[in-house]
């Protein structure tokens, strides 16, 4: 495990994601400083911290989405199910299938609702229409969108409301049957009602997936997560059970942040 305190905290859990002394650079700019943290399986871990502290950057190291940024560089390790994903010869396609991602700005493809959800399974080789239809239905049901769209699966996804689009993106991510779901401020662009729906959805999905969610909304972190990691200026300041971090922060910076003194 990572350090003694975390080890104690997490001893009853399977640890699915571990980062060890993770440094990250955008060219010459270091964005992450020695992040060491373990995230338990089938639990929701929230990443909080002021804007620009590296939450998204850290999240994107977990499915190697940062690979596409020119000049970006990683040092250290990220272990997923015990395997270092930055090891030479890692199959990034397989990794991203296992580690799904939902983005801050909902980004459904400008295609039909059906094609959006079927996209992942299709590129991974599912051709059979019946089978695809079953996957699409299951994913939409899980994302809590099925009832709203079942009669218009062939409509363009961009005709959906903002909240529906984001749940469609969640369904699309679920369709490739991931183990882990990364969510980068999935509700930050949504109205309160849609936000509540997405939060409820996270509550339902926690049984099935290991979820890591970035949020700048502390109430949201408190509502949806089991564990919370507080980032500040590219470093992990504190990691603890969400209950504890919000009632009894160990670090001064964490306390200042959650009591609203900055950020």
């Amino acid at each position, binding site marked *: 495990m990572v350090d003694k305190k975390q080890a104690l905290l997490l001893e009853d859990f399977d640890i699915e994601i571990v980062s060890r002394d993770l440094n990250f650079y955008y060219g010459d700019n270091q964005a992450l400083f020695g992040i060491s943290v373990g995230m338990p399986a089938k639990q929701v871990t929230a990443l909080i911290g002021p804007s620009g502290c590296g939450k998204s950057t850290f999240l994107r190291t977990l499915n190697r989405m940062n690979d*596409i940024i020119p000049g970006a560089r990683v040092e250290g390790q990220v272990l997923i199910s015990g395997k270092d994903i930055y090891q030479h010869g890692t199959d990034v396609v397989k990794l991203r*299938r296992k580690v*799904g991602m939902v983005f801050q700005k909902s*980004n459904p493809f400008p295609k039909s609702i059906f094609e959006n959800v079927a*996209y992942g399974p299709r590129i*991974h080789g599912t051709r059979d229409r019946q089978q695809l239809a079953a996957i699409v239905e299951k994913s939409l049901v899980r994302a809590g969108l099925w009832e709203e769209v079942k009669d218009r699966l062939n409509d363009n996804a*961009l005709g959906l409301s903002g909240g529906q689009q984001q749940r469609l993106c969640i369904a699309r*991510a679920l369709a490739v049957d991931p183990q882990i779901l990364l969510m980068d401020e999935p509700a930050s662009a949504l109205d309160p009602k849609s936000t509540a729906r997405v939060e409820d959805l996270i509550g339902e999905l926690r049984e099935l997936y290991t979820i890591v969610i970035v949020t700048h909304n502390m109430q949201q972190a408190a509502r949806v997560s089991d564990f919370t990691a507080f980032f500040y200026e590219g470093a992990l300041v504190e990691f603890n059970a969400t209950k504890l971090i919000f009632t009894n922060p160990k670090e001064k910076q964490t306390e200042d942040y959650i009591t609203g003194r900055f950020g």
Partner: protein
Amino acid sequence: MSGSFSENLIYGLLRAITYAIVLLVGYILFDIVIKGLPVLNWEFVSGYPHQSGASGGILPAIAGTFYLVLGTISVALPLGVGSAIYLSEYAFQGKFTTIIRMAIITLAGVPSIVYGLFGLGLFVLFFRFGASILSGSLTLACMVLPTIIVASEEALRAVPKGYREASLALGATKWETIRTNVLPYSLSGMITGSILGVGRAAGETAPILLTVAAFFLPKLPNSIFDQVMALPYHLYILATQHPDAEKVRPMQYGTALVLLLLVLGLSLGAIFIRAHYRKKYKW
């Protein structure tokens, strides 16, 4: 208030310039249509020329230009789109690609007669394609390639980043992502830009002068190794080389009008394709 006065002055000036340009283009079009329309009939567009073009129709020239346009598009579109994909998606974005981009932009400004000579040297003589549709199309393709590459790169850049990210995050490879979630959305921009470029090339005389165009060849081509007549060259001949230039003036206007309509048709085609794709993939 002096700022607002000078601002008004500049606006007025810019508006006047714009109107002047529109007026000028309008006058040219009007002139061609008015003088070309009387000769424009079925016989003119479907008949073969007689007496070096002084009478008869211009079918071989229409067909020649049509084949050249077709040949140019089928060579230049895949090459240009391919280069654009490579340059903007795969190539390392460093000094070298910057130099390549600058070279492409420079190529777009090279006078068309230079392309003509290049085509003569490379395709007609070196590759021994002779003066033929093939040589002409390849030469025109070289000429429009920069336009197509620039337009295609722009179209690729216009695709929102979110689509690529979503696709990659689902485990698609880079090529799968480009093929399924970048190209379809940028195709309309690519095709539109390309057709507009080809439309301009269709009216060029210099590049085909040395590589394909026949002075007088009243028959249709049998293969891509045949020479053909072409509208711009025919027009050029009628206007400057014909012994009775004055007498064949109506034929010149008729030819010019047909050429204009052809280019207009291409542009309309481009607009249609764009509208079609916009509707299919709107965002």
